[in-house]
Each structure stands twice: as structure tokens, then as C-alpha cells.
């Protein structure tokens, strides 16, 4: 197809897409040995060629504005347009080394956003520096480590992670220099208290939990878990990926969590951008504030300032102050939603999830019964006699213009199909999704090969993923 080319394949020698003013300055020449010996092979295209190319590339993607995107644990809510306009205002395009007196507006945004996040989560202070959820996890675990080391408690080298946890949890523990200890879940997905007691000892630095957990179940024993972990000398870390259903209703800090991160690109509506930029603010209880990463934005007598040097901090984890452009979008959203509507975000996200769960449980296997929070997991189709897998169902959904749910996660079920609708979707959209899911279940019974061969309406069909790994082609030159 004409429009399937790579930008390199439409490049033509001597074509240009840019214009620059004629430079009035004398031309400096560098010595030969400092220069590259061959030219970089960059595209040579006109402006329209570039615009048309990337417009056509974009049409091969599915976005939230096109259709329903019930991707579990990802909170694919609407990304309001005004957030983009505000973040793009020229008054916020500042060099990071500007004097604090000349950046009071942007520091106020930083400070106020962290204050509102603290209020919503029941923790004392947030740092907005971490760039993403996993970066926040790493920072939170560094804080945990430094807290124990400062108490001269050198034995605490292990982090408890439930088997249903996001993969980033154990990976972040490793990067922070901990080893992970896995605890099994109960049949209802919650933490097994007996198992927990068995692994708690003086080598445990803390536990990482998300509540509600990845099966969408609220840990009703959270206060007991918190007591047990604290009594054993450990701290509690809250993975904020699942904050949306309790937003404005219940707070991790009140549950006993000492440290948490929030994904602004989930709960607070900033766009995922195909995998970032996100933002992963880290909040801590009062006794841990001194460990937050530098630099820290503070306020005194209505003047905002930046504290660069701080001997008690875990250190610096970003070049500057984090993804400020993302923070501005989240602050816009926080102000737009406001106090009046905050709790309804949690309520409606839970309403939507339960409505879908109840409507589809006669077609899809529901391993955990009862009320869920913002998301829930099916363990594939009920009728498995035709060997139609979760992968097949996901691929068939593509033909109906629905983004598939998260598949094969959490790992506690073999055929996980994890659905999170968010609060932003109307009943009509959700009813359509239910209808599509029922149609696919029906097709799996009456014409299983149809489902196994899906998708049919997408720009490419099912891919040979093994081939890509066997013989990695990772750049244009590899194709020449």
C-alpha cells in the first residue's frame, strides 16, 4: 500500500521540510578529528509529505476518542481537551533554571497539586518528581530502605508482594536492592492473613499492595494487615494504579499505608500517549517526609521556593522537577472535577464494572463472585469445549471496534480477561460492549474457527510475534 511506507522509504534526496533564518554569525569550523565521518541517514521529505505520513500512521491506532477502551488496571478514561490547551499555554514554557521569583505560577501549580493529592490520599506530602508509576514505586522503595537504614535496622532486605501484583512491583523491589517474597491470594483474590503472618519477620522491610487489588476486590482486612505489618516493623506501600474506585471515598493513608504513588495518567486523566509521558507522584506519611527526593518545592509566607540540598533525602532521581507538563494537565482536571464530583468518579467506575460483570457472568467464567470495585476478572469463556481462548476473544473484539480488556493478567488465573470500564462511559456504550461480548461468546459456540481466525477488519491480521524475537529487525538499516 502506498501509505504503508516508512518515513525513510518516502525520502527523496535534496527534499526539505524545514526553514531557518539565514545566520548572521561567522561560521565556526571544527577540527576534522572531532567530526563524524559519514552523514546520518535522516529522512528528506517536504512538510506535506511528513504531515500526511504521520496522519496515515496515526489512523492505524485505536484511541479513547474512537471507542470503548476497557483495559484493566489502566484506567483509560477520557482525556479532556482543555487539559491540553492549558498545558500548552506559553506562560508555562519556562527554562528550568529560571529564578524562583520568575516561576511562582508554575511552582504554585506544583505545590497545590501535591497538596490536593495529599488531601485525597490521607498522606502528608507528595513529591511530583517521579516520571511514571514504576518510577514512583522505585522512589517509594528507596524511601523505605533509607528509613530502615537510618534506624540502623540492617536486616530488612525483603519486600512482600502478592502473587496478583503488577509486574512492576517485584521489578521495582529488585532495582531498589530488595528481594521479593510472594504471598498467595485467597480464592477471592485478597491477601491470605495466615500466609502473611508466616512470612512476616524482622527481615521484612515492607509490603506492596494495591487496594482494591488487581482482581478488583477491596482488601476488607486492610486495617488488620496494616497492624500486622507495622507490628513486625515493616512499612506499607500502596500501588496507586487502582486508586480510581475509592477516589474521594476512602484514603490509603487512613488505611495505614505509609508510602504510595499515584499514576496521574490513570486516575487524573492525563493521556497515556502510547506509553508515556506519565507522572508518578509519591506521597508519604509525616515521619517519612524528610526522605522525599530532591529537589523539593516548598512554600513559606505565600512564596514558593525550591530546596535543592537536603542531607536526609534519598537523593535525586530526575534531572529537573519531573514531567511538569503532565502535572499541569492533572491540576486542570482536579480543578474541573472539584470537591462536588470527586466521589462520583469512584462510585460510577464501580457501578459500571459491576453492571458489566453481572450482565456477562452467564457467558464468561467469573471466578470471584460478589461486588467488585472498578475492575474484575473473567477466567475466559464458561464453555471451553471449543478451545476458544482469551486471546481469540480479544482479537475478535477488534473486529467490533472495541479495545480488548487486559489479557492474561493477573497471573492468578489461566485465561484472565480483566475489564475496567471507568466512570467516563455512558450506559449506551457499556450496553453495546455487553452485546458485543455476548455475540463473541455465541460465535465461540457456533463458529469457533471464526473467532480463532480473528481479527479480520484491522490493518494487519494476527502477527507472528515469535519471528520478530528470533531474528530481531530493530531499525530501518536492518531492512536494507
Amino acid at each position, binding site marked *: 500500500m502506498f501509505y504503508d511506507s516508512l518515513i525513510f522509504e518516502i525520502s527523496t534526496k535534496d527534499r526539505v521540510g524545514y526553514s531557518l533564518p539565514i545566520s548572521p554569525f561567522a561560521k565556526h569550523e571544527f577540527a576534522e578529528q572531532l567530526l563524524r565521518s559519514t552523514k546520518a541517514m535522516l529522512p528528506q521529505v517536504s512538510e506535506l509529505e511528513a504531515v500526511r505520513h*504521520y496522519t496515515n500512521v496515526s489512523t492505524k491506532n485505536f484511541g479513547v476518542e474512537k471507542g470503548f477502551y476497557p483495559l484493566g488496571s489502566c484506567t483509560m478514561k477520557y482525556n479532556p481537551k482543555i487539559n491540553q490547551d492549558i498545558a500548552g499555554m506559553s506562560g508555562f514554557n519556562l527554562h528550568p533554571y529560571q529564578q524562583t521569583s520568575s516561576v511562582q505560577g508554575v511552582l504554585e501549580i506544583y505545590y497545590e497539586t501535591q497538596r490536593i493529592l495529599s488531601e485525597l490520599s490521607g498522606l502528608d506530602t507528595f513529591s511530583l518528581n517521579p516520571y511514571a*508509576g514504576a518510577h514512583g514505586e522505585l522512589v517509594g522503595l528507596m524511601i523505605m530502605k533509607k528509613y530502615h537504614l537510618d534506624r540502623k535496622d540492617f536486616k530488612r532486605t525483603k519486600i512482600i508482594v502478592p502473587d496478583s501484583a503488577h509486574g512492576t512491583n517485584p521489578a521495582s523491589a529488585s532495582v531498589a536492592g530488595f528481594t521479593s517474597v510472594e504471598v498467595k491470594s485467597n480464592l477471592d483474590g485478597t491477601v491470605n492473613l495466615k500466609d502473611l503472618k508466616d512470612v512476616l519477620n524482622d527481615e521484612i522491610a515492607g509490603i506492596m499492595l494495591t487496594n482494591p487489588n488487581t482482581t478488583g476486590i477491596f482488601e476488607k482486612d486492610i486495617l488488620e494487615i496494616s497492624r500486622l505489618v507495622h507490628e513486625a516493623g515493616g512499612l506499607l506501600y500502596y500501588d496507586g494504579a487502582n486508586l480510581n474506585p475509592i477516589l474521594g471515598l476512602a484514603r490509603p493513608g487512613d488505611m495505614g499505608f505509609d508510602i504510595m504513588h499515584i499514576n496521574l495518567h490513570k486516575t487524573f486523566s492525563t493521556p497515556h500517549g502510547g506509553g508515556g509521558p506519565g507522572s508518578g507522584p509519591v506521597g508519604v506519611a509525616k515521619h517519612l517526609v524528610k526522605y522525599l527526593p530532591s529537589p523539593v518545592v516548598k512554600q513559606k509566607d505565600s512564596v514558593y521556593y525550591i530546596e535543592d540540598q537536603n542531607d536526609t533525602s534519598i537523593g535525586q532521581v530526575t534531572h529537573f522537577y519531573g514531567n511538569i507538563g503532565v502535572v499541569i494537565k492533572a491540576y486542570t482536571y482536579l480543578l474541573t472535577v472539584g470537591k462536588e464530583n470527586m466521589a462520583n468518579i469512584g462510585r460510577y467506575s464501580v457501578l459500571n464494572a459491576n453492571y458489566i460483570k453481572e450482565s456477562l457472568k452467564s457467558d464468561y467464567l467469573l471466578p470471584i463472585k460478589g461486588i467488585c470495585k472498578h475492575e474484575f476478572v473473567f477466567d475466559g469463556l464458561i464453555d471451553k469445549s471449543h478451545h476458544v481462548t482469551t486471546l481469540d476473544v480479544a482479537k475478535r473484539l477488534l473486529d467490533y471496534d472495541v479495545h480488548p480488556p487486559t489479557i492474561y493478567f493477573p497471573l492468578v488465573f489461566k485465561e484472565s480477561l480483566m475489564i475496567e470500564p471507568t466512570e467516563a462511559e455512558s450506559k449506551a456504550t457499556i450496553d453495546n460492549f455487553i452485546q458485543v461480548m455476548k455475540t463473541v461468546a455465541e460465535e465461540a459456540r457456533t463458529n469457533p474457527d471464526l473467532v480463532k481466525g480473528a481479527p479480520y477488519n484491522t490493518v494487519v491480521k494476527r502477527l507472528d510475534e515469535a519471528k520478530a524475537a528470533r531474528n*530481531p529487525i530493530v531499525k530501518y538499516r536492518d531492512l536494507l
Partner: protein
Amino acid sequence: MFKYLPHTEADIKEMLAVIGVQRLDDLFQEIPNDLLGKDLNIPPSHSELEIYQRFNELAAKNKVLIPFVGAGAYDHYTPSVIRHLIERQEFLTAYTPYQPEISQGTLQYIFEYQSLICELTGMDVSNASMYDGATATAEAMMMAANAKNRKKVLISKTVNPNIIKVVETYAKYRDIEVGIVDEIDGITSLEDFKQQNDTENACLIVQNPNFYGIIEDYNGYREILDETKGLFIMNSDPSTLAVLKTPAEYGVDIACGDAQTLGVPLSFGGPYIGYLATTTKLMRKMPGRICGVTTDSEGKRAFVLTLQAREQHIRREKANSNICSNQSLLALFVTIYLSIMGEKGLKEAQMNSVNATHYLCESLTKLPTFRLAYNREYFKDVAIQTTLDPNIIDQALFEHGFLGPLQFGKFDETKKDVLLFSATEKRTKAEIDRLVEVLEAL
């Protein structure tokens, strides 16, 4: 009713009936009562008009200055088309491309981005992006320590001090020891490096052009590292690589840095974009996502995330890194930037910056109060020594709407009289002449 919440009372009633409960609160019964019903001190809901009023007020509390500083964040020109394209909802609102059949757009631009980073650095393979240049350098350091199974790394003192700090933070929690290789007259001390390098050292990290803007000649370093089987890591501003000798030409194992210089707005320090590229030999030790080429069931070329067995969602605690979300939309940003500029445009923008910085330096050092700190080749940052009080310089420039140079005293007590200036292709001759006039009057 609220504009982001579509349910009517009738919808809610119908849905609750299907679930089999009476009230919305019934959906939260398992949450302990003590946890519910806190009164929160958060602002009221703002209408769109009120949002604009509030943010206009906030923007007015900032003063956008004309920067004469770079030091890790550069005021380069951004072609207009980029914002229009990256804000297309198909790019902006999509999730990570885990379902490749409906994510070919994201996957294709990641592939193009990887190709462009490889063109600039000369390396074999790039990942899909890192958070920023400092964390990319820290990840490169961890990658080297893992690949070599060694617990010591060396970093040159001529690397940007903020990058050194981030590397030190990451290293500390992994019990990796960071040795600083001293500088001599603005460049890395080869002698000190030789002295500190041994078979326990996993890697040497350098920056080119270095923090002082100086273009270092790293010929010979590869051979020294080969003797101890250590890895060579180079942090480079990728925009300079249209002109300068590439990391690959210096025999580097891991190239990394910040691609903000490829037209990304200053945005008070972020979002920017880190890059990390390496050799085929080390590809499987690399952190982050990698996009590769394959075919679909009909034989058509397609793109897919590959070598995922390195990553956290598969390998969990044994993953190469914990990175998940990266700076994908910024990877698209710099991909479009490089497509628009091409090799010719990128080189022209960079050489215009070089020429503007040299003009600035030459004009300034004609004054008796300023002289070049190091007599070496520099790119678009230049270290200048002054007999004036740096804070008075800062204040005077501020009053004229300029952001003055970075004061080295911030990082190094012994260099209180050294300032780091920079000019990009956006600075006009009139602006530079005005800056020099202001400083001449002090």
C-alpha cells in the same frame, strides 16, 4: 450532572437493579466504616471559563525569560506541524501497544524513532525511550553492572552534576560504588581514569560535549577499557551528533542522553525524553521496550514489541529494569522533528547555535571582566570566567528579560567565578548584542 460523568438518575437505577442492590453506597459495604466519609479540603468544581481565569492568573505569575543558558535544557526551535500531529487522539490517547493489530501507528513510530536514534549515534539498537537523559544514564550504569556482574562504576567529573547525582542515587540502593574520575583543565583526566580503572570496574561514563560545552576527544579510551573488559558509556546530546563524531565511532557500548534538544519545548524541565542505544551483543541486557518487524498471517509487514522476556511484565523480579511507561509521545515528537529537519536542517540548526554561542563568547570576552575559562573547542555551551559578582549579572539580565548563565558555584565551591552561557539558533544578533551591552555597563 457533570460533563465528564454521563449517567442520569434513571441510568443509575437501571444499572443498580441489574446488579441487585438498592443504592450506590451498597457497592462499598466491605470498606470499613472508619475509612469512609472524610470531609476533604479540596477546591470546588471549576467551569471551563473559570479554569481559563485561574490559569491565566497563574501564568501571569511567571515571567518567560529569553534563555542564555542551556546546561541540559535548550531553547531550540520547534516546527509548527509537530504539535498538530502529536495531539491527534490516535497517538495521544492510546495505551502501550500491547495489542499490535490496532497499535500499528504507535509501533511504527517507535520503529522509526529507534532507526533515527541509531542513525545519530551509530549504534545497532535503541529502545523505545527512557524518562530523561539522567535516568537513561543511570539505567545504562545498571545495565553495565548487570552485564559485567561488577559492583563498581566510574563516571567523569565533566558529566553534568545533576546526571552524576541521579546515577549516584540509583547506584547507592544497589550497593554499587561510584568513583568520580577527576577533570583536568575542563576535560576528563586520562591519567586519573587509568589509575582508577581495574577489573572490578564495570564501566566508564563520560559526556560529550561535556558539561562545560567542551568537545572531548575520547580516542584511546576504548582500548584502555578493553584491557579490563569494562564497558564504555557515553552520554551525548543527540542533536550534536549530526555534526560530531558518534558514540559508535568512539567504540562505545552504550549511548544515552536526553533528546529534549530535538525541538522539545522547555516546559520547566519536563516532559523530556531519554534515549538509550547499544550494540547487538548487549541488546538482550537492555532495559525498556523494543519494537521489531514481523509479518502478519497474510505475509504483510507489521511491527510488534519484541524481546519482551527482558521486561517487568514477563520477568517480574528478574527483569532488566522496572521501567514500564516511558516517554512514548516524546519519541513521536522527536521522530517528526527529525523528519521535518532532515540531516541538513538538523546540522544547520546546530551549527547556527554553535556560531551564535561563539559570537556571544567572542563579544563577551572582549570586555575586561570576562575571559574564556578553558581554552578548548566548545559546542553550544561555553564556560566563561568573570571578575563580576554572578548574582549581580543574574539580576541585571533578569531586569532586561534575559535568563542569565548557570553559576558553577551551585555545584562546585572552587568555581564560583565560572558561568555557563549558551545560545541556540533562536537567539538573534540583536539579543546577543543587547546582552553584552547590559553586562558591559556593570
